[in-house]
C-alpha cells in the first residue's frame, strides 16, 4: 500500500473512490438506506434532487439514491463473486497446465481456446440467457468468461518457473507436485494474479451492467445500475437525474477499479520498476 502511494497517485485516487462507493454500498447491506429501494410511492414521483431525496425520485416515486446504493451493492457483489470464482479456477488451471504440461495442458488449452473463440460479452449473454437468473448464476456466467484469461496469464510464468533451480531443488527434496505448486510456484505469480484481479473487476462490473441493461441481468425489481439506466432512457427529459445518478456511479466505479488496476500494475510488475 505504501508502495502504491509512493509510485502511483492515480492508484491511490482509485482506492479513495472505491472506499467511498464501498461505504455507500455498505449502507444497503446494513439496512441503513434512507428509503426502501423497491418501495413505490406514486404521489412523490419525479421529484428533483433535494435534501429529502438526494438524487430525486423515479417514475414510481422510488428514491434514486437508495436504488443507486443498492445497485452498487448488487453490481459489486456480482463482480466480486465472478472474479473470485474466475481467479481460483483460472489460476489453478494455469498452474496445472504449466506445471504438469502434457495431457492436462492440452485439455486445458483446448477448453481455453474454445472459450476464447467467443466475443466476451456475447459469451456472458448466451450463458445468462440459458441460466435461471439470480445474482449467483449471473456471477457464474461472467466468471466463465474470465476463467480462460486467468489460465492464460498464469500458465506462461508457471512454465518458466518450473525450470528455475529452486523449483528443481524442491523437486529433489521429494516434495509432492501440489506442495511445490502451492508453496513455491504460486507465491511467485501472485503479483500477476493481483493485477489481473483488479482489471477483471472493472470488466466484470461493465459486463454485469451491460447484461442488466439488455434485460439479462439480475431480474427486477432488484435495483441494478444497468436496468436503472435502461428504464431512464425515456425519462431523460422529464427527470434527467434518473439517468445521471446511476450513469455517474457506474462510471465512477469502473474508473476507480481501472485506476487501482493500473496503479497496481505499475507498482507490482517488475518490468515497470524504475520507469515513469
Amino acid at each position, binding site marked *: 500500500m505504501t508502495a502504491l502511494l509512493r509510485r502511483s497517485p492515480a492508484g491511490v485516487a482509485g482506492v479513495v473512490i472505491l472506499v467511498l462507493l464501498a461505504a455507500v454500498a455498505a449502507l444497503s447491506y446494513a439496512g441503513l438506506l434512507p428509503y426502501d429501494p423497491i418501495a413505490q410511492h406514486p404521489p412523490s414521483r419525479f421529484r428533483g434532487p433535494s435534501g429529502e431525496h438526494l438524487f430525486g425520485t423515479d417514475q414510481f416515486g422510488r428514491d434514486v439514491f437508495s436504488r443507486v446504493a443498492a445497485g452498487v451493492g448488487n453490481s459489486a457483489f456480482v463482480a466480486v463473486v465472478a472474479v473470485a470464482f474466475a481467479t481460483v479456477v483460472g489460476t489453478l488451471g494455469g498452474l496445472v497446465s504449466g506445471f504438469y504440461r502434457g495431457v492436462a495442458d492440452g485439455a486445458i488449452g483446448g477448453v481455453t481456446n474454445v472459450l476464447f473463440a467467443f466475443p466476451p460479452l456475447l459469451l456472458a449473454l448466451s450463458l445468462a*440467457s440459458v441460466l435461471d437468473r439470480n445474482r449467483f448464476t449471473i456471477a457464474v456466467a461472467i466468471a466463465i468468461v474470465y476463467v480462460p484469461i486467468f489460465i492464460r496469464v498464469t500458465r506462461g510464468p508457471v512454465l518458466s518457473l518450473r525450470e528455475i533451480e529452486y523449483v528443481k531443488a524442491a523437486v529433489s527434496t521429494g516434495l509432492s507436485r501440489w506442495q511445490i505448486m502451492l508453496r513455491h510456484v504460486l507465491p511467485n505469480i501472485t503479483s500477476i494474479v493481483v493485477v489481473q484481479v483488479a482489471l477483471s473487476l472493472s470488466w466484470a462490473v461493465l459486463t454485469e451492467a451491460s447484461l442488466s441493461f439488455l434485460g439479462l441481468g439480475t431480474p427486477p425489481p432488484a435495483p441494478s445500475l444497468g436496468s436503472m439506466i435502461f428504464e431512464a432512457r425515456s425519462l431523460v427529459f422529464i427527470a434527467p437525474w434518473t439517468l445521471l445518478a446511476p450513469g455517474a456511479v457506474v462510471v465512477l466505479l469502473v474508473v476507480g477499479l481501472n485506476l487501482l488496476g493500473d496503479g497496481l500494475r505499475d507498482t507490482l510488475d517488475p518490468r515497470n520498476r524504475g520507469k515513469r
Partner: protein
Amino acid sequence: MRRIAGNRAARRVASTLGTLFGVAVFVFVMLRAIPGNQITAGLGTEAAALTPAQKQALEQYYGLDQPLVTQFFAWLGNMFTGNFGYSARSQQSVLDLTLHALPVTFELAVFSIVLALLIGVPLGMLSASRANAPRDAFGQVVSLAGLSIPAFLLATTLLSIFAASFGFNPNGQGFATLIENPLLNLQQMFLPALVLGFGIAAPILRTTRTAVLEVRSHDFVRTARAKGVPERRLQVRHVLGNALVPIVTMTGLQFGYLLGGAVVVEQVFSVPGIGRQVLLGIQQKEYAVVQSTVLVIALAFVVVNLLTDALYRIIDPRVRAS
C-alpha cells in the same frame, strides 16, 4: 525452412478446426441445457394441450427422439450445407437473416475501427510527444474515459442528446443499407460507430503511446534526426512505422469487444445487425436462431484472429524470418 513454415500453418489450421468443433459442441450443449425445445418454442403454452401421439409426431419431425449425438451431427451437417434452421416467428431461414445482418455488423465494425484509429493514434502520438506533460495527461484521461464509460450509457446519452437537442435521429426511421441509401446509411451508422470506436480508441491510444515512446528511444531515430530527416517525416515514417506492429495487434484484439459491443449498440440504435439478431433470438426464445448465429459469430471471430495474426507477420519482417 519453407517446409517448417508450411507445417506450422497446417498445425495452426488443424488446431483452429479443433477449436471450432469445440465451439459447436459448447453452443449445442449450452442451448440443450434450457428447459423446453422447438415444440414449446413454436407453440408456447399450447404445447401442453398436445396429445401424446401429436407430441411424438412432432418430436420425430424435429428429430428430438434421436440420441443427442445424432442430433448434434445432424445440426452440424445442416450448418455445412447452409441449412441454419428456421425462425418460427418470422418464418425466415436463419441463413437469410444472417446474410442480411452480417454485412451490417461488418460495416459497423469497419466504421468503428476507422474512427477508433482516427481518435486513438493521433492522441497516442500527442501523449507520447511529451510524456508526463499536460498533453499526456489529456490523452490518459481520454483513454480512461474510453475504458470506463459503458457503451450502453454513452449510446443512450448520445441518442437522447442528439435526438432532443438537434432533432438528429436518423435511426428513428427504417434502416437503409449502404447500397439502398448511402447518405442515410452513413448518418445511421455514425453514432453507433462513434460509441464503439470511442471504446476501442482507449486501448489503441495506450498502445500507440507506449510503442512510440519505446521506438523513439532507439538509436536509429537519433541517427535519422542527425541526418536531417524532417521532424514530421521522422515521426510518421520512422517512429510510427516501427510502432505499427503493436498498434495493429491491439486493433485486431479489439474485434471481440466490437462484436460483443455490437449487441448493445445495435440494440440501442435499432441497427439490424448480427448482435441484434442474437439478442432478439434470446428475447423471443428462438433457440434455432441463437444457436446458429452464435456459431457464425464465433467463426467470424476466429477468422479475424487468424487474419490479424497473418497481417502481423506481413508488417513485421522479424516475425516472418523467425
